[in-house]
């Protein structure tokens, strides 16, 4: 809407001298009538967004360039000191590596599982709507609750205090595949947190793909079959290209969820360096240590990275919507 306003304004400026003021006003009034109500309707949200999102993001950037600590915010400017310190901070580098591992495993797993579920349901399973709800339901549970359940399921105690999934393994006589899960002493520890994250969101990916599959007209597939294509070729040459936009949405949505994930990690393993990500580091350093400027610097970096993922996507979808 803002773009329309700006464009309208620009067109107005480019116009040379208007023929008659009254006609100009009438034209203006007509324009106002067409976009005025819409603007009025979104004005509160524009103001709220301006203040609470962009205003605060700017405020956050300002703090990240200051030497603020504890509750007293200092109004000074120290340049990119906090950013430089973070880049040479081993904890922060570990956190970034953890986040990368988490994101790759989580997105890969959710896409594969979600797509397979969608394929199976698309083939016309009996009681499809029941399955659809069952797979989608985990997304309705908050990440905090999911985390608390999975903290127990992924318990790594041994001997008599064995619990959770390991206990199930023991019960089935599969003790050999018991796992330390996210307590595994190497960099893949955080990959196990992708299990609950994937559990929560692969149903959502399934719904996206299922909608995509259902959106493909049956005629297209039939036409391919008439032309002698077997089922795999139908999927590869007809279905696959038509699912690319769905795949893109799924990847973008999952990426930004992954980058921002805080509650799930915090509920499963608080203050554990093996499963710490920049989002958690930001929280600890700000609220436990009072390093407000450092926390703001981490927040700004996260904001920029999320924007790098989201903005091209929004730009792309706005363009393709206009083309339509």
């Amino acid at each position, binding site marked *: *809407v803002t773009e329309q306003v700006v464009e309208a304004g620009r067109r107005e400026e480019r116009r040379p001298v208007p023929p008659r003021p009254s006609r100009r006003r009438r034209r203006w009034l007509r324009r106002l009538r067409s976009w005025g109500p*819409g603007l009025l*309707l*979104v004005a*509160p*949200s*524009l*103001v*709220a967004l301006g203040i*609470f999102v962009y205003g605060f993001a700017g405020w956050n950037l300002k703090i990240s360039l200051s030497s603020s*600590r*504890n*509750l*007293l915010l200092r109004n000074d400017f120290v340049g990119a000191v906090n950013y430089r310190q973070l880049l040479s901070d*081993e*904890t922060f580098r*570990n956190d970034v590596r953890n986040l990368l591992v988490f994101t790759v495993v989580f997105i890969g797993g959710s896409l594969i599982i979600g797509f397979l579920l969608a394929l199976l349901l698309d083939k016309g399973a009996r009681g499809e709507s029941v399955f659809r709800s069952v797979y989608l339901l985990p997304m309705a549970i908050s990440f905090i609750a999911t985390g608390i359940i999975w*903290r127990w399921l992924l*318990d*790594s*105690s*041994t*001997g*008599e*205090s064995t619990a959770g999934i390991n206990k199930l393994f023991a019960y089935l006589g599969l003790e050999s595949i018991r796992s330390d899960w*996210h*307590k595994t*002493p190497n960099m893949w520890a955080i990959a196990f947190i992708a299990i609950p994250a994937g559990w929560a969101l692969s149903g959502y990916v399934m719904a996206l793909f299922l909608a995509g599959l259902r959106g493909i007209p049956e005629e297209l597939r039939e036409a391919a079959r008439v032309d002698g294509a077997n089922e795999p070729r139908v999927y590869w040459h007809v279905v696959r290209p038509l699912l690319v936009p769905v795949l893109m949405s799924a990847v973008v949505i999952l990426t930004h969820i992954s980058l921002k994930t805080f509650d799930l990690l915090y509920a*499963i*393993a*608080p*203050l*554990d*360096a*093996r499963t*710490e990500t920049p989002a958690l*580091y930001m*929280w*600890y*350093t700000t*609220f*436990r*240590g*009072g*390093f407000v400027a450092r926390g703001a610097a981490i927040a700004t970096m996260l904001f920029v990275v999320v924007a790098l993922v989201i903005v091209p996507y929004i730009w792309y979808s706005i363009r393709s*919507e206009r083309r339509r």
Partner: protein
Amino acid sequence: MLRSRRGILAATAAAMLFAVTACGDDGADSGSGQSGDKEVEVFSWWSGPGEAEGLAALISEFEKQNSGVKFVNAAVAGGSGTQARQVLTTRLAGGQPPDSYQLHAGQEAASDIKDGRLEDITALYDKNGWRDKFPKGLIDAITVDGKLYTVPVNIHRSNLLWYSPNKLKEWGIAAPPKTWAEFLTQAETLKGKGVKPLSVGTTWTQMHLMENVLLGELGASKYTGLWNGSTDWAGADVVAALGTFTKVMAVAEATTADWQPEAKKVLDGTVAYNVMGDWYDAYAGRDQKKVYGIDYAAAPTPGSDGIYNFLSDSFTLPKGAPHRTAAEKWLELCGSVQGQDLFNPQKGSIPARTDADKTKYTGYLASALGDWQNSSTTIVGSLVHGVVANNAWKSEMEKAYGVFAQDKDAAKFAGAVKSAYNSVGK
């Protein structure tokens, strides 16, 4: 698509406006500092078994003494105040302090005092004659530039090793270890019998273990020196003590649970030892219905016999407290013999006052009170529980500990703690 997006935006805006107006409503009844306060809001992290009952006993006494004042219990769950602090920081930064909030006595209060968030309550001490009622060592630890800001309610001991006497006998171990080296020897015996020697949980419980390994290996005076700069963190003895800690961690069963599930493993007999503060006693005795001396018992952590690694919960008066008179009444109750004797037997801690009624403390608490008041006991302060390091240094240590727990590089950890001390610890 566009149309529905507009609808969502509008709905969001409406919701936001509603939230903003709703926020503006509270605080209307704040009679800043006037007598005749209608309520008092006290912020704490006392919500677990034992501590919640202790707080409830204090609340009912407070409401009896101050009829017409409503007590608002703003407790945030989470051991050692790890969750509460974040909620509190947000409220203080937003200029909406509670009437009184809980803090560990000592350096944890330092940044709040420096930022001008706390009222000087020295006058309250003089009015109630508290200076002679608390031990001098404690008064010294909580005095900042000659002024007092906190009222200590209780004393806890951090350096305790909990075990089950019967189980220990069953496993062929005569007595709990006197040194950490002896502990590691016992650990081998225990492992041979299929028993995990030690249980430890989330990071703060690991650091709790670490501070007591340092105390046991370095002794009281070097340990105290770690916090005031007189012991060199990068020194060979400290690095060696940290090396012992990594060996202890290697034989321990480490999870990410809070302290209670780990404590329970000792009571269940699946793990031999657990290093935890004496709040263990209230959990085991009251919550798990076990008997001290039979089902479970405590010894000083290895190498810390005759040393009392203390911590203390205390209450404060924040600047701008909306109900100041009622808050002062609350602090007076916290500092009184009556208040301390109501609270502590429930919480499983001993009173900070020296003139409390000794007959109210039985079992473990009787021996703890005896140790605390014994003049030959050496008193040192706890790191994890806020006595010896300010929040900034402590959080940098937690951060460094995260790296240490992974790479087990004691020298690097010591170096990181030392440089953090130089930049923010002093």
